[in-house]
Structure formats: structure tokens, C-alpha cells
């Protein structure tokens, strides 16, 4: 079983490689990267004129299975991931039941093995039922295949509980991923607290609700020595504090979502739930700070927070709608536009944000090593075009849900083919 991807511009930031070369995948792994490789019997993918990158990794998605399969399933979420160029996704534990035990972790791993066309790595809950009180069976979940722990969507408010979780995670060498939101400060809020929220009469979620938990957690990360990761960072002060933690040498990382760098409150269509998510779209100065943080390295990687919700859940009064938007299929188009075409970062840096950087945050090792086109790494490749114009039509989505603010938007550049374990699992229509 061989696949030879020929004549593409191979960009592998982890290897410092940016040159026209061939990539040979053999038995599901990267076998060689060099010009003019010969591989008798291999399937050939002609990538001339295209960019060949390590398989993209999204460490923050919601696949809704088990429990909410009307909105998404492991199979459909994986197809949406492939259509967005992603080869590995890490799914958050807020399913029903919550992924707080080896049983649920195993269920997801097994279901994904049978039905998902990309790699699916579960993230286990920090606390039982993500209720924030009693630690979940962290070690057992990790043994069953979980790659990190998080109570995403339900931040751990009790500082003592998160401290104990950090100690456990440190011993297991997995990161703790926190959705940073002080629930007392954000209570009842449906959008960022600002002039717009006051004007629209919508209760606000102040930036400070994110900031205070980032501050607390960085102090506790120092206390415990854990690898600590801030999910979907969205405020300027939070970015500043993560940068400060890095300066002090702490293993603190963070991710930003494409929507938080592409949209701010003034882009919101009033009372349209496709603009409702947590953290909320922030002010322009916050967006600028997150983009600057990406350029400076304070922000480590991009992640979509793909959060499908069924149409009827989103067709309600704004304050009754659930939080979250889909994002897998638009991530590359959006981030090319905001970061690369604007001249803020290079294409190589953008690829790093989707490959070796998220891989470093999770810390895959040995047989699980990914995020680079190095021999022995998982045979996952994302083939993309950085310029071609296309328009996102949510009616064609592979996801079961359509809650996106980007429907009808024209992008320049996007995924062309997705290769997982040496096999082409998705190709853009027309290529």
C-alpha cells in the first residue's frame, strides 16, 4: 500500500522544508520526502502547482456522539473535517453521556475506527459529568486513548479541583485544556459585553470573565507544573497573560479559532444565532491582539471549536439558542484570508499553526507522532491551494449542521485533498 504525492511544493515547518519534492507514504506512514522519488507500484497523486503539507490537526471539535446525533455524528463530523483538510481531530467530552470514563472513551475510539475517515482522538472530561466537583477517571481515559483532559463548555470553577486535576495530568503527561470563563461574571450573558450588547439589550459576557480564569489557571499551572492550554482565546488581556507565562518559561499554550480572528462584534447580524458562540465575538481591539499574538508566537495554534447544532435549535430567539458554530470546512479559507493574504504571517507559519504546533500542544509521541512529514510519522497529508477562489455553500456541507456565519463567503485558497493513513479520503470537487 503505497501513495506517491508528486511534484508538489512541500511545506513542512517542523522540518524547515519548503521545496518542490515528492512525498512517499507507505503502510500508513511517511516513508520518504525527496525530489524525484521512484516507487514502483505506488498510486500516484499529481500535486504539481499545489502545496503538500503535513495532515492538519484540529485539537478542538465537538462531534456530538454519543447523545446528540441529530446535530452531528463521529462519521459526519469526520467527513466535514476531511472536507476542511483536517486529518486528525480531537473531540471534546461534552457528549451524553459525558466522556468521563474509559467506557465512553473506548466507545468513541471504536466507533471512530469503524466509521470515521479521519483520525479521531477523544479528550476526556476533567470532572465527573463535567460537573466541576469530583475528578473523572483520568488515568483510565488516557489509557483508553484520550489525549488530553478538558471540561470544555463547563469551566472548572473550583480552584482546588482544577489544581488536583492539573497534578493528575502532569503525572500522566497530558495537557489540561480549559475553557476559560468565570461563570459568575458571565452568568446570563449571550454576547460580548460592549456598546453593541447594551444597544441590542442582550446581556453581556465581559472580557474579564475570560481573563480572571486565565490568570488563576496560569498561577496554578506554575504551582503544579502541568502543561496547561487555554482553549479558544479571545481577549487581549488573556493573550497578554499567556505571553507573560511563556516569557517566564511555563508550559502554557493557547489556541485561537478562525472566527475569533475574522469577526468582531460589529460584524454580527443582530439577533442571528450564527454569530452566537462562547467565547463570544469580541471587540476589534481583542481581535487585533489575538492576531498579533498569532504572529508573535504567544498564540500557539489554531483550532475550530466546530460546534454543530441542529437547525431547529438555532432557529430560535437569540437568547434561547445554544452557543457555537461549525468551523471545520471554513477554517483554512478564513485563516488564509485573515492571516496570510493580509500579510500578517507566511503560508509556512499558517501550516505550522495547523500541524506541528497543535501536535506539540497535545504531545503525540512514538507511533502516534504526527504534524510533520518525517519518516515514521503518521501518513497524514493535507494538499491545498493557497489562492484559488471558491465560495462556501453550507447546503453542500458534510456536517449534519449548518450553523455558520460564513455561508456564501468567497475565500481564496483552501484544501484540495486530504490523505489519512496513506489513503486519499477526500478531494475537492473539480480536482
Amino acid at each position, binding site marked *: 500500500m503505497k501513495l506517491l504525492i508528486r511534484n508538489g511544493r512541500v511545506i513542512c515547518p517542523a522540518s524547515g522544508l519548503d521545496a518542490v519534492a515528492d512525498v512517499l507514504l507507505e503502510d500508513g506512514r511517511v516513508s520518504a520526502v525527496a525530489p524525484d522519488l521512484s516507487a514502483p507500484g505506488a498510486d500516484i497523486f499529481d500535486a504539481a502547482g499545489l502545496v503538500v503539507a503535513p495532515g492538519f490537526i484540529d485539537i478542538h471539535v465537538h462531534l456530538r456522539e454519543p447523545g446528540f446525533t441529530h446535530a452531528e455524528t463521529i462519521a459526519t463530523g469526520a467527513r466535514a473535517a476531511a472536507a476542511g483538510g483536517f486529518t486528525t481531530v480531537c473531540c471534546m467530552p461534552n457528549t451524553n453521556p459525558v466522556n468521563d470514563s474509559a467506557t465512553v472513551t473506548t466507545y468513541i475510539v471504536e466507533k471512530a475506527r469503524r466509521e470515521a475517515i479521519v483520525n479521531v482522538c477523544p479528550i476526556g472530561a476533567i470532572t465527573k459529568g463535567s460537573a466541576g466537583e469530583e475528578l473523572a477517571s483520568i488515568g483510565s481515559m488516557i489509557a483508553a486513548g484520550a489525549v488530553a483532559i478538558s471540561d470544555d463548555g463547563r469551566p472548572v470553577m473550583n480552584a482546588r479541583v482544577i489544581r488536583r486535576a492539573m497534578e493528575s495530568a502532569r503525572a500522566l503527561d497530558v495537557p489540561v485544556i480549559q475553557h476559560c470563563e468565570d461563570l459568575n461574571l458571565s452568568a446570563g450573558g449571550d454576547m460580548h459585553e460592549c456598546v453593541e450588547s447594551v*444597544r*441590542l439589550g442582550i446581556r453581556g459576557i465581559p472580557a474579564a470573565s475570560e481573563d480572571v480564569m486565565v490568570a488563576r489557571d496560569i498561577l496554578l499551572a506554575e504551582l503544579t507544573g502541568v502543561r496547561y492550554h487555554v482553549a479558544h482565546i479571545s481577549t487581549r488581556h488573556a493573550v497578554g497573560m499567556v505571553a507573560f507565562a511563556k516569557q517566564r518559561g511555563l508550559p502554557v499554550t493557547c489556541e485561537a479559532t478562525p472566527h475569533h480572528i475574522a469577526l468582531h462584534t460589529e460584524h454580527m447580524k443582530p*439577533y442571528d444565532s450564527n454569530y452566537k458562540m462562547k467565547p463570544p465575538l469580541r471587540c476589534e481591539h481583542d481581535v487585533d491582539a489575538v492576531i498579533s499574538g498569532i504572529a508573535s508566537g504567544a498564540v500557539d495554534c489554531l483550532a475550530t471549536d466546530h460546534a454543530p447544532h441542529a437547525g431547529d435549535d438555532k432557529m430560535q*430567539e437569540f437568547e434561547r439558542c445554544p452557543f457555537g458554530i461549525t468551523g471545520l470546512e471554513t477554517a483554512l479559507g478564513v485563516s488564509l484570508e485573515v492571516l496570510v493574504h493580509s500579510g500578517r504571517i507566511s503560508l509556512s507559519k499558517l501550516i505550522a499553526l495547523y500541524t506541528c504546533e497543535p501536535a506539540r500542544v497535545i504531545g503525540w509521541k512514538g507511533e502516534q507522532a504526527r504534524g510533520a512529514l518525517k519518516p515514521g510519522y503518521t501518513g497524514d497529508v493535507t494538499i491545498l491551494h493557497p489562492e484559488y477562489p471558491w465560495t462556501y455553500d453550507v447546503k453542500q456541507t458534510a456536517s449534519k449542521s449548518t450553523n455558520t456565519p460564513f455561508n456564501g463567503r468567497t475565500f481564496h485558497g483552501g484544501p484540495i485533498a486530504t490523505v489519512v493513513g496513506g489513503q486519499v479520503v477526500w478531494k475537492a470537487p473539480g480536482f
Partner: protein
Amino acid sequence: MALGLLGIEETDRSVIEQILERAVAFQPHDGRTFAKANTCTGKLVVNAFFENSTRTRSSFEIAAHRLGADTLAITASGSSVSKGESLVDTLNTLVAMRPSAIVMRHQASGAPHFLSRHLSTPIVNAGDGTHEHPTQALLDARTILDCCGRLEGLRVAIIGDIQHSRVARSNVHLLSKFGADTVLCGPPSLLPREMASIASGVTLEYDILRAVTGAHVVMMLRVQLERIHEPAMQPGEYFRFYGLRQEHLSLAHPEVIVMHPGPMNRGREISSEVADSQRARILNQVENGVAVRMAVLERVLSQ
């Protein structure tokens, strides 16, 4: 999108002027009741009130009847909403009954704006959450015009729970469009600083004495306890610092008028002495409510 009335913010000054002008024709005079116009005979108005209301609903009903229109009243407790039906489905059902307009009150900000994207029937917003209450601002403006003869250059103090007040927001937008100076006053937790930026000519004041000084109009607002999750102030202290009393009126313009959209809590945001004084225009507001709503409905129904 059909032309209804969703908010003052997006309504042109010229449209507001036409409504206020037309309302004069419907005002009651010499102790008689409201003029019967019958300009909307045969039209059906659905009054869909998903949040409790007595005065606004009665006002809209009387207004529709005076125009010769038929009305159908839907209240939340009597509707399918309590059986789990979505708002869109409920409204689509009502639309199938072919009304010419839907008058809607809802506890969620933006609910009529959201619905207007999915329905072809014009919607008149009778109050959405903490966002807007456009007909209240229109009747307030009619009342001020009746008393002061103008809006431009007036100093209008709006005092109380600004944060949760759709009345305040609609009035701020209307007064701003007509060049009045609006002073918003209340305890800090009920007066977001951002209010000063939602329209021009708005200033904030935390001291009631300064707010009423020189005011031509003082509008008092109720503290909306049902929307407050942690008490801003003890009730007694609230009255001490933000309750309107006779002594405040001596600081205001000599011809000051006192308004209140109701429901009014005597001894909490306003003293009985002031509420019953010659300066109060609270019952004129109620009268103008019918006249202004007749003008609004006539405009919407005659499209």
C-alpha cells in the same frame, strides 16, 4: 421584509414625525373618547403577547378597534409556546390566519427582529426584552410635544433601571433623532457606561440632583426586579438616592413635566406626592398611547 415597526433606532425621523402628527387626529378631546376612524375596516390584527402586559395590550386593542380592525389576542399561557412549540412555528400558524399585522411583545430581545426575517406579515414591536418599546417612545414624544411644543433642545432626564429598560432605549433613540439632550441616571449597576454611546446627545449621571437640574422632562422608570439577578440596592436606599420627590422638582425647569411608563411603584422610584402632582403627565401618556398606536396601526395596515 414587510414594513412594520420594529424599533425607533432604525426608523427615520420623517416617519416618526408623520406618526406623531397623525396621532393628534386621534387624541380625545373634551372628555369624549377616542375618535373612531374606521380606516382599517376588515383588517385583522393579531396581538401576540408572550410576556404579561395589561396596559400595552389593552391600548393596542382599543387602537385597532377604533380603526375598525378586528383583533385576536394570543397570550403566552394560552398559546402553544407552553406546549414546547417554537416561536417560528407559532407565528407561522398565526400568519396562516391571514392577519394584516402582528403586534408582538416578547421577553427575548430581538425576537420580533428575528421573526421578521422569516415572516412576510408586518410586525409591530410592543416591547422586546430589554431592547426596544417603540410605541412607548412615540407616545412619550407625543406627550412631551403636547406639553412643551418641541423636542429639540429639551433636557430630558430618564431615571431608574436603565440597564433593563426597553423604554429608555427607545426614548434615547427618539430624543437623539430630534436633538434633545438626554441625561440617564441610576445606580451604577443599572446604568451601563456603554449607554452613553448608543446615540448622540446622551450623558450619564449617577446623582439624581444633578440629573434633574434644569430638566424640562423627568421620566421615571421602575426597577425591573424580575430581570435582576442580584439586588443593586436595598429598596429603602433606592428611594433615598433615586426616588423622585417634591424637593427634586425645584431644581428642574419651572415647567417640568414628570412621566412614568408604568407600572409605577409609589414610594420606590417616585413619591405619591409627585405622582399625583400637577406636574405629572402619567395619565396623558396612557391616553396618547391609544392615539399613537392608532397612527402606527393605520400606517402599517394601509400598506
